[in-house]
């Protein structure tokens, strides 16, 4: 893929300690990672390895105990809850394992909510929400409530919600964990299409081996440390650029070591899935 050179999200020597006293846990130990535009990165590791903590820190939900995180050039160091909230709504879109759609809102209202939270109440908000739903192949489900949608459709609404704000970073937490094979592949196809945009970086936290064929890069984390980084099956021939100040020395793994599955775009057209034609304020 056409990865941009300037990182959209950058973690440098990040440490995170959770809890106090006897319950104190060192969740992250000197993690450095850079996410560039036009790249879909998989973050993989066993349970308790620190994946979710790293996602929380990269996504501006938590601040690191030590080290630095920059979101589209803005540091989260010392930021209070309101500043972090502003950074999230400005720079980050999230897709959650359990979708977390609002059950009382329709699909299009769920998508519009992100714009509303950003103070974008203009006349074009419904059109933008509709376009985002069309991007994920749900143009015909605008007025369906989440209970009327399948798991895969709900996750696609969640993706539309994550992309409608045209944020530079998109983080997905186990997006295929609750889905069957077909729906899981469809979701990954959408995410991979979004990652074609050089102005947008996509990070997917996953256990699911079905996601491997869609990765441009795979980062493996164990015991709070990045232990390996490898080019994904989806990646082009260009060698990976190491993240600045990377403290760990991950092993290089051949893309051939993963077993790509055939990707079926199903109802989603890869070309139509390009997030937006409009420019992003954070485009390099």
């Amino acid at each position, binding site marked *: 893929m056409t990865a941009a050179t300037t990182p959209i999200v950058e973690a440098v020597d990040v440490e995170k300690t959770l809890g106090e006293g006897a319950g104190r846990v060192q969740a992250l130990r000197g993690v450095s990672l850079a996410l560039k535009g036009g790249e879909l990165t998989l973050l993989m590791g066993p349970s308790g390895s620190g994946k*979710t903590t790293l*996602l*929380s820190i990269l996504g501006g*939900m*938590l601040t690191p105990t030590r080290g630095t995180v920059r979101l589209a050039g803005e540091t989260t160091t010392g930021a209070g*809850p*309101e500043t972090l*909230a*502003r*950074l*999230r*709504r*400005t720079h*980050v*879109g*999230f897709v*959650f*394992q*359990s979708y*977390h759609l*609002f*059950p*009382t*809102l329709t699909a299009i*209202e769920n998508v*519009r*909510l*992100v714009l*509303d*939270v*950003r103070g974008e*109440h203009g*006349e074009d*908000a*419904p059109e933008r929400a509709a376009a985002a739903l069309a991007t994920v192949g749900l143009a015909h489900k605008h007025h369906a409530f989440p209970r009327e949608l399948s798991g895969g459709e709900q996750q696609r609404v969640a993706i539309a*919600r994550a992309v409608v704000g045209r944020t530079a970073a998109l983080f997905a*937490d186990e997006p295929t964990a609750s889905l069957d094979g077909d729906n899981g592949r469809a979701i990954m196809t959408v995410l991979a299409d979004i990652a074609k945009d050089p102005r947008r970086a996509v990070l997917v936290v996953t256990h699911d081996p079905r996601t491997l064929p869609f990765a441009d890069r795979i980062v493996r984390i164990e015991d709070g440390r990045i232990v390996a980084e490898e080019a994904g099956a989806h990646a082009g021939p260009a060698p990976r650029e190491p993240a600045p100040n990377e403290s760990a020395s991950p092993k290089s793994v051949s893309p051939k070591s993963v077993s790509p599955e055939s990707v079926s775009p199903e109802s989603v057209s890869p070309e139509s899935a390009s997030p937006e034609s409009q420019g992003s304020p954070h485009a390099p």
Partner: protein
Amino acid sequence: MRPGWIERIDMRLRTAAGPALRSGAASALSRLGDAADALHEHLARARKRGLPLIVLLAWRNLFHDRVRLVTTVIGIVFSVILVTVQIGLYLGFERMVTTMIDHADADLWIVPKGTRNFEDPSLLDDRQRFRALSIAGVADVAPLVLGFAEWRRPDGGATPVFVVGSDPRGGGLGPWNVVEGRVDALATPFSVAVDRSYFGRLGVRGLGDAGELRDQKARIVAVTSGIRSFTTTPYVFAAYDRARAYMNTPADRATYFLVRLRPDADATAVRDRIQGNIADAEVLTRAEFRERSRSFWLFGTGAGAALFGGALLGIVVGTVIVAQTLYSSTKDHIAEFATLRAIGSSTRYIVEVILWQALLSAVVGFLLATAAGVVIVVLTADSALPVVMTPGLVLGLLVLTVVMCAVSAVAAIREVVRIDPATVLSR
């Protein structure tokens, strides 16, 4: 784009008025047209946008759980009705205890020293009246006698009444809201006026019936509507001399003197001059006498404290019920609020959602409570203690309901502002 009615007025003005007027009117109409266009466009945009999403979310959160919504609304309705009844009783009470003062034709009242309220009669010497008449600025001083007497019913038996006697031709305090008969008929011998709501107590059926007061005939020549006494003792209006006879009041005595001032007189200055000229009496303005009567009944007797206590209880109960339901609703939707936080919502946005929920609950509850309040007002209109609703009370209740619901939202707000957005990743 400009509305047709503006163009029509414009054309009429152009043909009917002179050049200068036409020019000014055309300019004003042009500005009016621009404003109408702007308003039209604004409304069209608002229609296109529909209900703001934050309001929609609050509304749907409320209506998502109908049982909880019903509980919340019942709590608000109960609270507002309780406050309405208590304040309405207070207003009705206040109106009743001052109704005689309000309907008297008097700018100043000369009352026996230490008088606490209208129905607290002792007697003044008639000489006070003539002293008052000698003061500059005084147009007239009318005597008023009142006091308790025993009404003997036509069928036997007796009931206490409160006799009010003044000259029916000379102002003072006569019956009002006369629905049958005539006030000037009180000048005929042994005539009285009573309120129709007391017919049962007085043992009469209407005009022409008669009872007895101190063994003297009292024939009903006028019937009023709505003149009720807070003490439940019926008022019986009579001519001044007749009333004195019914109560055996000496000829040189009266209960109050009602002073009417000349149009250009300064009430306070005249009041001070009269006060300096008479002894063993107080001179009060109408407002002062009202306030004295009101204070005595409301606060001197503890009745006001009971009414206010009931209203306060209503507010507390309503606030607690609404707070509890809003809090549990917020707890039920906590995952959604965490999601809002995770997608970058500011604290202010989340607080607004909860406040909209509180406001919508308040409006729904208020509308139902007001409808119930109107029914109560109608049902109690002819009772001994009617509940009164004024526009000010309705407006005050709306403000109170909104404030009560906003205060109720505090606990829910405290809960959501502490949400850790990272919790959505572990759910």
